């Protein structure tokens, strides 16, 4: 499917979804409230069939005090990509877990929890994955500071 077709197909499923600008492929921003339902339909809808969660990560937009959660979906049936994102507030970052839809989400979400501190509801085993269990703070947040960090080039 072409980019605009994909976007309109998503909008048919979720009217509140808006196209995300400045992405090199089909991308939409969806509201958090009905996110799980939308993702379930994206996976199961016969002409979408996004059966693979390619990657899941977050972007810390600290100026706007929100974390943008990015899901990159791929369909091995139709061979098309879709980037779905949703924003959660930085201070109360809670998101439904996609683990029931794509098992790989279990670990990708653990990674995002580890590095960004997003809490996933319904996750069976939410704990740090790359860092120690007793690590303080979430390193990929822009305001993370540590003793051994140097100031970046400006």
């Amino acid at each position, binding site marked *: 499917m072409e980019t605009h077709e994909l976007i309109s197909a998503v909008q048919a499923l979720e009217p509140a979804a808006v196209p*995300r*600008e*400045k*992405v*090199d*492929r089909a*991308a939409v921003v969806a509201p958090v409230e009905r996110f799980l339902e939308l993702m379930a339909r994206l996976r199961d809808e016969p002409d979408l069939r996004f*059966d*693979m*969660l*390619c*990657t899941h*990560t977050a*972007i*810390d937009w600290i100026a706007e005090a929100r974390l943008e959660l*990015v899901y*990159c979906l791929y369909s*091995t049936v139709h*061979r098309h*990509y879709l*980037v779905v994102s949703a924003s959660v507030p930085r201070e109360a970052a*809670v998101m439904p877990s996609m683990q029931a839809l*794509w*098992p*790989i989400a*279990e*670990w*990708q979400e653990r*990674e995002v*929890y580890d*590095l960004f501190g997003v*809490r*996933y*509801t*319904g*996750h069976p*085993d*939410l*704990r*740090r*994955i*790359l*860092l*120690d*269990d007793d690590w303080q703070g979430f*390193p*990929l947040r822009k305001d993370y500071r540590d003793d051994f960090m140097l100031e*970046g*080039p400006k």
Partner: protein
Amino acid sequence: MSAIVTTLEQRIGRGATTQEFFVNMGPQHPSTHGVLRLVLKLEGETVKDVIPVLGYVHRGVEKMGEHLSYRQFVHLTDRLDYLSALANNWAVAKAVEKAAGIETNERIETIRTLVAELQRIASHQLWWGVFGMDLGAFTPFLYGFRDRERITDILEETIGARLTMNYIQPGGVMFDLHPDFQRKVKEFIAYFRPKLEEYETLLSRNIIAQERMRGVGVLEAAQAVALGATGPVLRASGVAHDLRKSEPYGVYGKVEFDVPVGARGDCWDRYWVRIEEIRQSLRIIEQLIENIPEGKHLLVKPAVRTKVPEGITYSQVETARGVFGVLLVSDGKDVPYRIHVRTPNFNNLWAITRIAPGWRVADLVTMISSLDIVVPDIDR
């Protein structure tokens, strides 16, 4: 519904009976290929549960990337999957070129394809050797390394490095091909084809090896896709997903090659797919080596701090282990606002938690090896 944070002890403590015991496989264990730690729940020799524990070589590549220019970030990707350093370089170069609109020429793309395929062969050779060793046969290891040496020698002449290549950069490749490159690659192909037959005789046709692989660790197609497995692991399960075919980059669109696909998704299929991929890579190299187009090899000076316009770019390449993706978020500066790498091994690894239960410890070793895991790539 509230999100509950658990600890490793709680995860381990779930549902253990007196007959079962836990044993740490790794972080120092010869078959975890680095510092991967698997907590195994065993009943006798039978594996009941596998809990991978990661992070022993976590270096915070993504955090470092937020402070480095795009050219500098290429260095770091060498150190992820060190056996596919060139493909990883290429993924970053591709992302930056796409985002910043940098053009390349035919020569650059051909060189990239050639060296990436050479390294794919080298990577599979190493995997083959290590796989033999994990099955308990030591000799394949040395055979694999003997032939891999030839490729590293060829690449060293051009690139100047043997492992962490740092060669493909946005807008070209660091150095032009060495004058001997074409001759030596042709010599290598003539040398290696009979050796590949030797590999088959030594390991593939051995009855013990076959018994150890066939029917072991079956990963079904739907499961493989849902687990986000890519590369030979996914293709062995019967899903013909190869980025070189489905969305050709480089000059893959201009060469003929097949995508080997397995039938059952057991260890044997994963083995066979990789051996077959070596043959296909040889085919690709043979088609390209005769006519490397003329032109400049580098269109952007290495020292230039490329500025990338605001936006998100996701680009991916097919490494020897699967899809390596780079999600590049730029706010218009010469350093990325956020750079995320989707590494094939991180996603492939989890298949082990689904396929290992019910098999023996020895099979677990075979399965880990058949997933072809490189740990720094998982931990980043």
